[in-house]
Structure formats: structure tokens, C-alpha cells
């Protein structure tokens, strides 16, 4: 492949550009759709909503899920809410304000046309979910309730207590199960997608491993949709579910799909910190706690006293001190960076000095315990279960953790990757969040892609690209199957003695250190050589017990972690090449004397899109970003 495909950005003014585009897209007769196979990988918000909608249109849809049930997809864990611009409120919210916030929030590293489309679609998503029976919070009069979120100045976040992702996912899951019952969707659970099949450069199927029988299967279709989520598990300890893997997008990348801005990864400031070496994940605590909680550290380095013994004058409420106007509500990346700097300087509290206090004492004093319990009861319980401490009596301890990945497979305006016929939706793609995602925007994007965008653009592609059916005995299918088989045999035959998790933990430690909250060239280069060495050791020293047949969780992990090595190296390369600080990507070399990020719009106002090369370093392409509706401005939260 040479260079970057046309991103197909609509010409003309961006307002209504999506409407104009949609009206110009070709259609397929409903009768003919019944003879067209569509393959959807993943059943989170993006996958379930896309599959249900494509099936409703009449396509023959096959859905592959890693889990035992589509309802397990990690969208289920999203807590806070879903943004939508509905001009019913009186606080002045509008499509253009949501557009502005999204583009600014992403620090001008996303396409403005995509941000505009997302804002336009947002309101309809809420209607769609309500119709499915999603029990959003309501006002006493019966209308939909909203709250403000993540530093936004308007109240546009719709929610279902602290379980919004769960409720939206169940809405999409139920819509999907309805199509299963109607016979329009073939649902195949417990399948791990390990390879993409392309025929004449066009995506035509996947190789999947059946996680119970161990059998390798070939699934072919006219088009493939990857809706497989993000890759924060590269960091080992993250807020992601343990089985959230990036194999499908990584294998597609190796087959030619460009990977965009892999270094844009978001660190969430309010997570329950790591306690033990065997801790397997970090649990997120909704950011809403920062509305009432005050974040502080002891003034003295190495102060080991318990929080209640530290008098007021010996405490440093550092966010309030540094950001008088935003205080504890400073944006995610800023809050995370300040916490890390102070902990690295020896000011941190808790095991290993790797946490800061989030203190609700003042709020409990002024509003009473009950008011706080009503607002955060489920979070307080969760914290108590995990840490063993009572957050009503003692300040909570929190620390930043890898959370969401803005980077992903490069897609054009129609959500198609650089491989024709391969569409990528939701967190798996690189789209509207730029270098940093706004709170409550992930759910909005996943559902916009699945319910409203892909069903139109996939149809348009199918209408213009008729092709004969590919059967599993096609040479491309056989080759993909055989190479996967060899990969599994090699993995099982590796004569080492060390379990996979041990390598994954090491990889995570390198990545959080060199490519986490803040990055610098020396650390990134060092990280790159460490990951290369670790990958070599992995292939020589890992032990994957058991056989290819039957359930084998260690084999699943080994395949996943072997992909993470490649992905980690691409993240490091990308972070090294992006010589600026923007959004969640903070390069130590590029900051003002006050420690604020310095973006470089002259050299880096583009999307970096990486092309894989077998046995050679990847090639970095760039797609220049044009801003017509809003000119780039500098973020300031001081």
C-alpha cells in the first residue's frame, strides 16, 4: 500500500454535512440484503447496536463474541453517563457547543467533521435507548434528568445511577437478542478472533478460535466490522476487564490496516490504587467524586501519619492551590500528572507511596452523611469492599490508572479502515476523541457508530462493491488458518517455565513507566528496547500448558500478550515521533515553564497513521487536520 487512502471528508460547511453525505449514499434493495453476509466482531455498545441494526435492515448477520454472553462486553462497566446535545434544557446547550467541547477536549487532534456529526447524532441516541426501555434517571415530573460531567459547563449527561454503560449495553444486547430470535442474527459466543482474511486486498472474513473446543474456524462475509474495544490492557494494570484484548485490531493492522495515534491513551485520575503485587486490575471510581471530594497530600515528604492525624496546616490541597478556578475539577490529564509528580517526589501516601487522598470529610460535615451516601453510596461500598477501609471515616486513597484508548485503527469519515470492506467502530477506531476524550463521550460514540453511522456507510460500500462469495476452501482462508495454527503450535511448544502473566506484568510496568502519564524521549527509547528484549524472552521462556483442543485460558492469554508486545512498541514509537504535548500525550520536553502542555500546531496538527511492514520498522503517514469552524486555541485551566 502506498500512503494514506482518501479520508472521504465531506466538502462544504460542516453543519449538516452528515445529512448531505447520507442522502448521497447508495442504497441496496431490502430483498437483496437477505443474500448478503455481514460479520460483526464484538458485542459491546458498538458491536451489538450495529449488528441489531444491520439485521433489522435485512442483512444476514453473524456476530462473534469473546464472551459466554454478549451482555458481558466491557461497555457494561461504564459508570458515569452519556452526553447528548438536546436543546430542551435552558442552560444554553446546543449541537454547536457539544461539537466545540469535543474538538477542544480532544485538543484539536480529531477531524472537525466527525465531531460535528457526533454532536448532531447525539440526541437521537437518547431517544433510541429510551424506546428500548433503558431506565434513565428522571425528574419528578417525568422528564429525562441530566447532570454535568467532567468539567463541562452545561448539564448534558444522561445517566442511570452509576451504571449507565450497563443499562445502555443491555438495551443494545436485548435488541440483538430480538434479532437472534427472529433468525436474522447468528450469534456465536466464546470465539477469539485471531486473524483477518483478505481476498484481493478486501476484508472477507476472519479466523476464530472456539474457546471451548479449541477448533479454528473460518467465517467469511462480504464485509467485516471490528467492534472490539480498546487496548489499555497493554499496561497490565488498567481499568479494563481482564479479557479485553486487542488481537482483532492488531492482526488487522498486521494485514495492512493503518493504526492511528496509538500513543493517545487516557489515564483516569480517580482509581483505587494498587495494593498487592498480585493485584490483577485497577477499579475506577466515578470522577463525580471530585465534585465533593478534596484531593490532598501531606506537605512533608515521607509523612507516614494516618490522614486524621495530619493537621489542616500541614496538608497540601494541591489542585486547589495550582488551579484556583477549577480546583479539584481540573481535567483528567492535568489532575493525573500533578498526582504522579508529587508521588514521584516522595510525597505520596499508602503502600509504596503511590496514592493521594480524596477526602469527603468537609462534604460530610456540611451536607451530612446521608446526603453523601445518596450521591455516592455504591462507590463508597465498592471502595470499602476492595480496600477494607471505611471512606466515611478515613479519606479514600486514589491514583491514576490507564483507562480509555483514543488511538485505534485509522478509519475514514465512513468508518472504513484502510483495508476496503473492513469497518471499525467504537473504541477500536481512531475518531472523534482526538488526543483526549471528554467524560461521558465514549458511550455516545460507540452507539453513534453502531446505530446510526455504520448501517448507512456499510450499505453504501456493499452497494458499490459486488463480489463473488468466498468459501472457506479459498486459498486466502486456508493460508490464514494455517498461519494461525502454526502460531498456536509454536506457543504451545515453547519449552519455557514462566507463566504468561509474569511477562504481562513486566510489560505493564515498562509501559506505565515509559509511556504512561508523562513521556520523554529517553524513557521512550529505553522502553522500546526493554519491550523488544521482553518479547524475545517471552518467546523463549514462556510456558503455555495444555493443548490446542479444549478450553485453555493460558493459551488465550499467551496469544493476547504476544500481540500486546507489538502494540506496545508501536505506542512507544508513536509517542516518540509526536514531538509535542497534546491532550493525554504529555512530553516532558514540550511544556511551558509553568508545566503546562505545549502543543505544536505547525508540525503536528495531523493524525499519525502507521503502516506495518514485515521485518522492518513501520512507516508513519500523516493526515493533515483542517479546522474551519473552530480555530485551535490553547487549553488553560489555571
Amino acid at each position, binding site marked *: 500500500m502506498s500512503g494514506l487512502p482518501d479520508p472521504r471528508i465531506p466538502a462544504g460547511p460542516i453543519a449538516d454535512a452528515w445529512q448531505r453525505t447520507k442522502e448521497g449514499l447508495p442504497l441496496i434493495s431490502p430483498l437483496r440484503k437477505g443474500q448478503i453476509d455481514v460479520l460483526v466482531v464484538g458485542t459491546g455498545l458498538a458491536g451489538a447496536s450495529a449488528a441489531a*441494526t444491520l439485521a433489522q435492515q435485512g442483512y444476514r448477520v453473524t456476530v462473534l463474541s469473546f464472551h459466554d454472553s454478549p451482555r458481558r462486553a466491557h461497555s457494561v462497566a461504564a459508570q458515569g453517563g452519556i452526553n447528548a446535545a438536546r436543546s430542551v434544557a435552558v442552560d444554553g446547550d446546543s449541537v454547536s457547543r457539544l461539537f466545540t467541547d469535543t474538538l477542544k477536549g480532544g485538543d484539536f487532534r480529531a477531524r472537525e467533521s466527525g465531531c460535528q456529526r457526533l454532536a448532531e447524532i447525539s440526541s437521537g441516541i437518547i431517544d433510541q435507548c429510551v*424506546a428500548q426501555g433503558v431506565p434513565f434517571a428522571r425528574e419528578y415530573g417525568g422528564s429525562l434528568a441530566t447532570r454535568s460531567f467532567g468539567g463541562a459547563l452545561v448539564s448534558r449527561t444522561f445517566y442511570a445511577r452509576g451504571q449507565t454503560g450497563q443499562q445502555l449495553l443491555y438495551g443494545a444486547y436485548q435488541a440483538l437478542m*430480538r434479532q437472534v430470535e427472529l433468525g436474522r442474527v447468528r450469534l456465536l459466543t466464546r470465539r477469539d478472533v485471531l486473524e483477518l482474511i483478505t481476498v484481493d486486498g478486501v476484508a472477507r472474513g476472519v479466523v476464530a478460535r472456539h474457546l471451548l473446543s479449541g477448533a479454528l474456524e473460518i467465517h467469511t462475509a462480504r464485509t467485516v466490522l471490528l467492534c472490539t474495544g480498546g487496548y489499555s490492557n497493554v499496561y497490565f494494570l488498567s481499568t479494563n476487564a481482564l479479557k479485553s484484548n486487542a488481537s482483532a485490531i492488531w492482526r488487522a493492522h498486521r494485514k495492512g490496516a493503518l493504526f492511528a495515534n496509538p500513543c493517545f491513551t487516557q489515564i483516569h485520575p480517580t482509581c483505587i490504587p494498587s495494593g498487592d503485587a498480585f493485584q490483577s486490575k485497577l477499579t475506577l471510581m466515578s470522577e463525580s467524586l471530585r465534585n465533593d471530594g478534596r484531593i490532598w497530600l501531606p506537605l512533608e515528604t515521607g509523612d507516614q501519619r494516618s490522614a486524621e492525624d495530619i493537621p489542616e496546616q500541614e496538608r497540601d490541597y494541591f489542585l486547589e492551590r495550582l488551579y484556583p478556578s477549577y480546583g479539584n475539577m481540573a481535567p483528567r490529564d492535568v489532575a493525573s500528572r500533578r498526582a504522579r509528580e508529587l508521588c514521584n517526589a516522595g510525597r505520596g501516601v499508602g503502600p509504596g507511596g503511590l496514592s493521594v487522598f480524596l477526602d469527603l470529610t468537609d462534604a460530610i460535615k456540611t451536607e451530612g452523611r446521608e446526603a453523601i451516601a445518596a450521591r455516592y453510596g455504591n462507590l463508597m461500598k465498592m471502595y470499602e469492599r476492595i480496600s477494607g477501609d471505611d471512606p466515611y471515616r478515613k479519606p479514600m486513597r486514589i491514583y491514576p490508572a490507564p483507562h480509555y484508548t483514543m488511538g485505534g485503527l485509522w478509519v475514514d469519515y465512513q468508518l472504513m479502515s484502510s483495508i476496503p470492506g473492513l469497518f471499525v467502530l467504537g473504541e477500536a477506531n481512531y475518531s472523534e476523541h482526538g488526543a483526549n476524550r471528554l467524560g461521558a463521550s465514549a458511550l455516545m460514540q460507540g452507539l453513534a457508530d453502531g446505530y446510526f453511522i455504520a448501517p448507512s456507510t456499510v450499505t453504501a460500500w456493499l452497494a458499490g462493491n459486488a463480489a463473488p462469495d468466498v468459501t472457506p476452501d479459498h486459498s486466502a482462508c486456508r493460508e490464514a488458518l494455517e498461519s494461525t495454527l502454526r502460531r498456536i503450535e509454536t506457543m504451545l511448544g515453547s519449552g519455557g517455565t514462566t507463566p504468561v502473566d509474569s511477562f504481562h506484568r513486566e510489560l505493564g510496568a515498562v509501559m506505565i513507566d515509559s509511556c504512561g502519564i508523562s513521556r520523554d524521549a529517553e524513557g521512550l527509547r529505553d522502553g522500546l528496547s526493554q519491550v523488544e528484549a521482553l518479547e524475545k524472552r517471552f518467546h523463549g521462556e514462556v510456558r503455555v500448558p495444555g493443548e490446542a483442543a479444549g478450553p485453555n485460558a493460558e493459551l488465550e492469554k499467551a496469544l493476547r500478550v504476544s500481540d500486546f508486545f507489538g502494540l506496545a512498541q508501536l505506542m512507544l514509537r508513536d509517542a516518540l515521533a509526536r514531538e509535542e504535548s497534546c491532550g493525554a500525550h504529555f512530553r516532558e520536553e514540550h511544556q511551558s515553564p509553568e508545566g503546562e502542555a505545549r502543543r505544536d500546531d505547525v508540525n503536528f496538527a495531523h493524525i499519525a497513521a502507521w503502516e506495518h511492514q514485515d521485518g522492518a520498522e513501520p512507516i508513519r503517514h500523516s493526515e493533515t487536520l483542517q479546522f474551519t469552524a473552530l480555530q485551535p486555541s490553547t487549553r488553560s485551566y489555571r
Partner: protein
Amino acid sequence: MKITLRIWRQPAADQPGRYERHGLADVSPDVSLLEALDQLNEQLISAGERPVSFEHDCREGICGSCGFLVNGQAHGPRIATSVCQLYLREFEDGAELTLEPWRAKAFPAIQDLMVDRSALDRLIAAGGYCSTGTGQAPDGNALPVGRDQATSAFSTATCIGCGACVASCRNASASLFVAAKLAHLGQLPQGQPERASRAKAMQDQMVTEGFGSCSSHLECEAACPQEISADWISWMHRERRG
């Protein structure tokens, strides 16, 4: 601390199972029970033995993947807590914990602590939805839903589909699971058009799948990590008559 795990090991559904004892001599009370199983598995792998199979994913109590009996109790002794959120500090130093899989006719065994719960998906497919398609939605504010009504519907919609209610029921009934879904949709205006047919279809499917009937022992409510009330089961039975 020190703990002993007495674990049900069964290589496959068609092979016999047995309990196997494994000790963890020096484990932190601040790890979860699943993390203790991770540690045990690393030891087993290094020793060249087959690791223990168990379902898990989010490890924060929301995905519903995990679940097995701990000393005979679904998800273990702590109320409103799925097993991934159960920490060793809940147990005494030197404790022995018996871990065994959900046992129900409708949940065929797979391996060790894993069972097949796809019957729950088929219950949803039988009618656990509003038959609306994408793009056919009216304005979300067109149908007002009172705050209390929305809250009550939400509390039943929080079911995570873990199957603890089935596993703790002497009849292996899925009544609480079905009642929760019927109550979620049946309390909202969007769910009204199909309310009666949904109630019939889902309860019929429950019989087809081999789940038992409810005989009001209320163990389901006690085991439910989301604390869904068994009162909804009586509500469900009235729906069937209605």
C-alpha cells in the same frame, strides 16, 4: 495469611469430577479470592499441572462472568457481593474454602468451576426486550416516567445475569432472573404493548430450558449480588394470570 482451597476439578462435562486440595502458604489478605486463584494457577503452571478454570472478566462486580459456590454459598458469604469482589480479609487465617461450580440442569458443566449459562440468553431472546427497531424512536421525553417509577424499573434492570439465583435455588429456578426482566420492562411505558406476551413467552422458555419452579425459599434474593427483591417473583406470577 494461609488458606486452603478445596476445589472441584472436572476436566470435561462427560468426565467425572473430584475435589482437589491446594494450600497457599503466604498470601496477602488484601487480594481477592480470584487473585488467590491466579496465584495458585501460576504455581500449578510452573509445576507443569493444569490450571484451574474459572469464569471472570471485569473483576469489579458488573459483568456477571464470575460465580461459583464458596463453602456452599453462591458468591460466598458477603452480602450484595459477587465473588470477584470477595477479599481474603473476609476469612480467618488458615481457613479452608470449598469452591464448586453452579449446579443446575440448565447450566451444563464445562470444566472445573465453569458452566454454560447460555440458557439465560435464550430467556432474554424469548421476549426480554421492547420490539422497537433503530430509527423508530419517538422523543425520549414524549412518554413521561415518574422518578420513583424509573428508580424502581432501574433497580430490577441491574441484574448482571450471573446465575447465582439459579445456583442457590433448591429447584434451580430462574424465577428471579425472569421476574427482574419482566419487572424492568413491565414498569415502564415502553414495555406495555408486549407486557402480557413477554410474561408468557419468558416463563414458557424457563420451563423449556429445564429450570425449576419457585417454592419461595428466597435463597435467590439472599444470593443476588445486585440485591434484587424476590417480591418481584410474586409480581411475575400475577402477570402470568393477568
